[in-house]
C-alpha cells in the first residue's frame, strides 16, 4: 500500500466505530449532562423554593384533570362531615360554650324547615324543653356564682321568649284550618310538657345557692309565668276541641287535665309554694299582679271555656262534687 492510499484509508477510519467513532446516543446524552454540569449551581434556598413548584407542576401536570373532581368531592364531604360533627358537638353544648351558637342556629334552621304548623309548634316546644334541660345542667355546674347567675338568667329569659312563641303559634293554628285531631294531640303534649317544664324549673331554682337565687328570681318567675300561660292556652285548645266534639278526648281526660292545671296554679301561688320561696329567698314577696293574672286567667279558662265540661261533669256526678269543684275554684280566686 502506497503512502497516499494509507493516508486516504486513515482519514476514512473516522467513519468507523472501530476507528473511534462514538455512538450518536452517547454523544447526545453526554452533551446534556455536560450542559447541566456547567450551569451555575442554584443555592439551597432557591432549590427549596423550586422544589415546591416542581411538586406542584408535577401534580397539576400529571394528575390535574384527575385531581380536580376528586378534590371537589373531598371538600364537599369534608364540609358535610365538618357540619355534622360541629352540630353533633354543639348538641351537648350549654349557654356560654363555644358551640352553643351553632346549636341555636341549627335549631332556627330546623324550625324554618319544619312543616306543617302543628309539627312546627311541637318542635318549638321541644326546644323549650331543651332550654329547661340546659338550665338544669347550668344550675348543677360547679362554676363561679356570678357566671352561673348570668347564664341561668339568660336561659330563663330565652325560655320565656320561646314558650311565648309556642303559645302564639298554638293560638294561630287553632284559629286556622289544622285538623282538630292533630291539634288536640299537639295541645295535649304541650299541656303535659309545660307542666313538667314548670315543675323542673321550680325544682332547679330550689337547688341554686341563695345568692344566685336572688339574682335570677325575676327571670325565673317570668319564665314560670310564661310556661304556665302557654300550658293554660294548650288546655284551652283541648277544652275547646272537646266542646266541639273531638272524639280523641274523653271526659275523664279533660277532667284530669283541668284538675292538674288547677293543682299547678295552686302550687305556684307564692304564699304556699316552696318554689317561689326558693326563688325569692328571704325576701317577703308581695302578691304581684302577674301572679294574680295567672290565677285569674286560669280560673277564667276553667269557668268560661269549660262550662260544658263542668256542666257535664256536674250532671254525671253528685252535687257534692259540684260543691267540691266550686270550692277549689273559689280557693283559687281568693
Amino acid at each position: 500500500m502506497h503512502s497516499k492510499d494509507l493516508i486516504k484509508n486513515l482519514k476514512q477510519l473516522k467513519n468507523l466505530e472501530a476507528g473511534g467513532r462514538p455512538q450518536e446516543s452517547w454523544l447526545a446524552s453526554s452533551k446534556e449532562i455536560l450542559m447541566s454540569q456547567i450551569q451555575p449551581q442554584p443555592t439551597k434556598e432557591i432549590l427549596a423554593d423550586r422544589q415546591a413548584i416542581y411538586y406542584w407542576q408535577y401534580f397539576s401536570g400529571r394528575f390535574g384533570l384527575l385531581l380536580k373532581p376528586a378534590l371537589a368531592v373531598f371538600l364537599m364531604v369534608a364540609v358535610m362531615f365538618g357540619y355534622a360533627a360541629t352540630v353533633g358537638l354543639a348538641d351537648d353544648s350549654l349557654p356560654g360554650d363555644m358551640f352553643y351558637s351553632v346549636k341555636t342556629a341549627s335549631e332556627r334552621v330546623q324550625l324554618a324547615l319544619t312543616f306543617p304548623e302543628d309539627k312546627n309548634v311541637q318542635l318549638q316546644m321541644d326546644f323549650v324543653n331543651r332550654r329547661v334541660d340546659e338550665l338544669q345542667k347550668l344550675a348543677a355546674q360547679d362554676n363561679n356564682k356570678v357566671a352561673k347567675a348570668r347564664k341561668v338568667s339568660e336561659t330563663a329569659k330565652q325560655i320565656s321568649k320561646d314558650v311565648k312563641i309556642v303559645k302564639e303559634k298554638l293560638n294561630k293554628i287553632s284559629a286556622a284550618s289544622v285538623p282538630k285531631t292533630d291539634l288536640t294531640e299537639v295541645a295535649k303534649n304541650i299541656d303535659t310538657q309545660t307542666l313538667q317544664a314548670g315543675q323542673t324549673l321550680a325544682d332547679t331554682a330550689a337547688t341554686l345557692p341563695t345568692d344566685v337565687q336572688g339574682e335570677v328570681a325575676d327571670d325565673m318567675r317570668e319564665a314560670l309565668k310564661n310556661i304556665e300561660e302557654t300550658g293554660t292556652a294548650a288546655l284551652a285548645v283541648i277544652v275547646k276541641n272537646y266542646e266541639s266534639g273531638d272524639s280523641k278526648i274523653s271526659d275523664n281526660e279533660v277532667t284530669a287535665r283541668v284538675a292538674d292545671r288547677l293543682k299547678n296554679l295552686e302550687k305556684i301561688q307564692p304564699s304556699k309554694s316552696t318554689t317561689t320561696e326558693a326563688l325569692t329567698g328571704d325576701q317577703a314577696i308581695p302578691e304581684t299582679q302577674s301572679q294574680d293574672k295567672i290565677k285569674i286567667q286560669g280560673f277564667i279558662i276553667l269557668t268560661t271555656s269549660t262550662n260544658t265540661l263542668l256542666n257535664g261533669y256536674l250532671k254525671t256526678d253528685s252535687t257534692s262534687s259540684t260543691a267540691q269543684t266550686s270550692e277549689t275554684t273559689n280557693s283559687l280566686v281568693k
Partner: protein
Amino acid sequence: MKNPLEKTILFLKVKNKDKEAYGRFYDLYATRIYRFIFFKINSVADAQDLTSEVFLKLWQYLKEDKEIKNLNAFTYMVARNTVIDFFRSKARKEDSVEEVEESDLAKATADNRADPLAQQIVNSDLNQVLKGLENLKDEYKEVIILKYLDELSIGEIAEVLNKSRGAVRVLLHRAAKALKETVNA
C-alpha cells in the same frame, strides 16, 4: 464548521465562557476527542467516561481564566493528560487493562461486521490500516491520529505533545513509515 472565521468566533466565545458556544464546541470536538482517547485506551466505556471528563475539565480551565493560546491544541492536551492520569490510576492493574483493551477492540471490530458498510471493508485495505494502527506503539499511533484523522497542524501537534515542530515532523515520519511496514507486512 468549514468557515475559519466562524470557527475563530466560536473559539473566542468559548474562551469567554459562553455556555451556548461551549455546547457547539462540544458538537465539533466530542467525536475527535473520543476517537483520540479510544485509540489510546481501546475501551468504549472508558473512552466515553474520559471524553466527558475532558470537556468538564476544559470548562473548569476556561472558568479559571487560564491562558489558552490555541483552543484546538489545548483540548487535545487536556485529553492526553486525562488519559495519562487514567493510566496512572490503573497502573497497578496493567495486565488486566491490556486484556480489556484487546477484548473491547475485538468487539468493536466484530460489531462493525454486522454493519453492511463495515462488512464491505472487513477485508479491505481499511481494515488492514486499522489493524496496523492498533499494532503501532502509542507514540506513533497518537501522532498519526492527530495528523491524519483529526487534521491538526504540525504546530498544534507540537503543542499537544509538548514537543518542537521538528521533533513532531520526525516523529510523524517515523510513525508513517512504521504503519506502512505493518500494513504491507
